[in-house]
């Protein structure tokens, strides 16, 4: 089904017009010839920007999948194939190989001339017959890996219909007919897939196969390589081109850590979750929420089919990590929920992008395992609750770093609340919750209050109590709070002398929080540690004066 959907996608893209066994290929050098095959000169197609990886302009050109073996492409290929050109300092072995490559290339041209009698190819043949690299004025910056092709009297031979037919013929599969598992027709299957998938993080830059059996254990029924899954050439090229395009497309792909997500819809609708997931703008999120929640029941959900696929590399092969078929409407609804879940009080209240969310769970972004972004994308697209281990990672990371960052607080809130869809009213856990009497939550708030007191008493100190005690306070509050409260008393005493105003506010805030705490819990479990983190974060975000003002409003009797 996946391959079929990809093929459908390819059919509506510009690549659908490519001839069989052709691919858009960057070609850096054009060799201009006249009708007689006389050399006129080299023309570079490079854009002029001195980019290192400038590989030239893209043309539809013959393509095939090549490993180390010598297999020439017709008329357009690397410089070592086309000209036998190799750098001066190359090893003798490679020089010999370049010569072999060139011979194979010339042989293919001769075959093409015999079969088609196309005058332009004949001219190329003549040129190659008289080729002498020592007299040819080669461009200074040509390298053996650059692609080269010919222009004969203004025409590119690779554009000619008969040349294209010839190339398709030489590449036709000689396999026995079999039922193609994409289109269902009886056709010769491809032994090797014609297009390798490039651009998978961690994969081989030359591309990898999605369909192939490259070891004995992967083969079945005595069938080798891709014959285990018979796919005809049209379908194989179709899905290959679609993948290529989706991986390149600005708003069709999203790479996070070791995984690339591809998104598309059955028909072009201009909907893509890429930008809103990667770098959500508050305005866009607001518009999304309004479109989903604002018109409840009034507007039917957009029923257009939506597909998402997650690819990663696994030992030189492409692994499909996830595959989702749903509708645009469903995705919009789940996305809205995803953003509602992560709403958290803050000065600017900006939504958090997918990358900061995932990166908040690991020490360095290179540690992002595939299943972390997977969990978030599943929540955003399918509405699948975040798994419990995400909560564990977030809590553990907070303890290790002795800090609750905004993305991490978002993750904790999402993980806590995603389990209970629709059972909580809007705004729950978004900001400081003064009515929350949960000991873990209050312990978290208390730590923030103690930190405020310390900051006020000793402005500019480098290591605060949070830097030293967050881990213990969040897991075993009873063991540290006695000591922390004693220290806070001396800080408060100092404040009473120096800053009367701050003293009054903080003293009241401390009392407010302590009033709810009958005793300090000896240990906190995972759920409670998460609440602790949120309590700490909420209190920090609310600031100390805000906390007191709110508390005063909530408990008017405190005014006396």
């Amino acid at each position, binding site marked *: 089904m996946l391959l079929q959907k990809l093929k459908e996608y390819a059919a509506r893209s510009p690549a659908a017009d490519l001839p069989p066994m052709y691919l858009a290929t960057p070609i850096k050098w054009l060799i201009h010839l006249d009708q007689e095959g006389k050399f006129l000169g080299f023309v570079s197609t490079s854009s002029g920007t001195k980019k290192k990886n400038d590989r030239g302009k893209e043309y539809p050109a013959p393509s095939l999948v090549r490993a180390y073996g010598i297999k020439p492409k017709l008329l357009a290929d690397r410089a070592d194939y086309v000209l036998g050109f190799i750098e001066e300092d190359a090893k003798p072995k490679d020089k010999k190989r370049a010569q072999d490559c060139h011979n194979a290339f010339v042989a293919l041209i001769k075959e093409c001339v015999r079969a088609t009698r196309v005058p332009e190819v004949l001219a190329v043949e003549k040129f190659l017959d008289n080729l002498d690299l020592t007299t040819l004025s080669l461009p200074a910056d040509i390298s053996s890996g650059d692609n080269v092709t010919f222009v004969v009297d203004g025409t590119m031979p690779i554009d000619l219909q008969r040349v294209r037919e010839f190339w398709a013929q030489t590449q036709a599969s000689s396999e026995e007919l079999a*039922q193609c598992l994409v289109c269902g027709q009886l056709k010769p299957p491809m032994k090797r897939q014609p297009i390798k998938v490039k651009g998978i993080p961690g994969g081989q830059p030359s591309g990898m196969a999605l369909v192939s059996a490259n*070891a004995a*254990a992967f083969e079945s029924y005595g069938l080798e390589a891709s014959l285990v899954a018979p796919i005809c050439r049209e379908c194989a090229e179709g899905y290959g081109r679609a993948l290529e395009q989706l991986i390149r497309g600005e708003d069709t792909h999203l790479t996070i850590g070791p995984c690339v997500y591809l998104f598309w819809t059955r028909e072009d609708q201009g909907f893509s979750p890429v930008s809103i997931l990667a770098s959500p703008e508050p305005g866009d999120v607001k518009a999304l929420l309004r479109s989903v929640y604002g018109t409840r029941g009034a507007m039917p959900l957009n029923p257009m089919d939506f597909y998402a696929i997650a690819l990663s590399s696994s030992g030189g*092969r492409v692994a499909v990590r996830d595959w989702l078929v749903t509708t645009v409407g469903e995705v919009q609804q789940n996305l809205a929920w995803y953003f509602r879940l992560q709403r958290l009080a803050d000065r600017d209240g900006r939504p958090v992008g997918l990358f900061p969310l995932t990166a908040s769970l690991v020490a360095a972004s290179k540690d992002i395992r595939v299943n972390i972004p997977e969990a978030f994308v599943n929540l955003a697209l399918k509405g699948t609750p975040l798994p419990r281990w995400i909560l564990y990672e977030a809590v553990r990371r907070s303890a290790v770093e002795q800090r609750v960052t905004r993305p991490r607080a978002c993750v904790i809130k999402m993980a806590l609340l995603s389990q209970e869809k629709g059972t909580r009213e809007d705004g729950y856990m978004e900001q400081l919750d003064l009515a929350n009497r949960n000991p873990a939550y209050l312990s978290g708030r208390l730590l923030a209050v103690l930190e405020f007191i310390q900051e006020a008493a000793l402005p500019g100190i480098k290591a605060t109590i949070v830097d030293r005690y967050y881990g213990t306070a969040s897991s075993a509050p009873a063991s540290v709070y006695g000591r922390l409260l004693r220290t806070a008393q001396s800080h408060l005493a100092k404040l009473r002398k120096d800053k009367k105003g701050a003293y009054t506010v903080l003293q009241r805030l401390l009392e407010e929080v302590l009033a709810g705490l009958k005793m300090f819990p000896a240990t906190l479990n995972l759920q409670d540690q998460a609440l602790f983190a949120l309590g700490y974060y909420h209190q920090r975000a609310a600031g100390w004066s805000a906390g007191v003002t709110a508390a005063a409003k909530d408990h008017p009797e405190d005014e006396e």
Partner: protein
Amino acid sequence: MYEDAPLVVKLWGDFACFTRPEMKVERVSYPVLTPSAARGALEAIFWKPEFRWRVKRIDVLKPIRYFSLLRNEVNNKVAVSSVKGWGPDHGYYADLDRAQRHTLALRDVAYLVWADVDLAHHASGIDPAKYRDQFRRRVARGQCRHQPYLGCREFAAFFSPPDGREQPFPLTEDLGLMLFDIDYAPDGSGRGKPRFFRAKLVGGILDIPQEL
């Protein structure tokens, strides 16, 4: 009068992987039990050379849920010749021949499989009702030749007669081409060609074309 009474068995399990042939290296499962996997499960319960199973219909009883898992697997097959060479001192070290492979499998599945028996040529004249009754008795007692499984040996299947309260999970979806079965070469070489059919889930029911 038992002529047309269909055989139906309920199969369920925690995990399942009905591997798509195009993604069999880094495995991806079909969303629904395939007819050939259903046949395998039926054969595990009861099989005789006198008949072969023909799966008629599959009811999907639970929502389709995927999960992914990563395992170390070996790159080679067990061939008789290489086993002979192992001997007491030259064992096969799986650690030296490993590949890490990913599987996108299904979790928490349950199906009703409707099937019938087709008699072989040499069994003409036998009343197939006898096999059907044997099958029903075996299912009722929980007897099987080996534990049936859902696509992969390691995903064991449990089975029972349906209790009549099963409802297909209402899901209508075009599943595209699905593996029907393998046409094995008659020479016994084990070579075979996969055959596919257009699978369509209508209200949680997958009808298997009988002309195949």
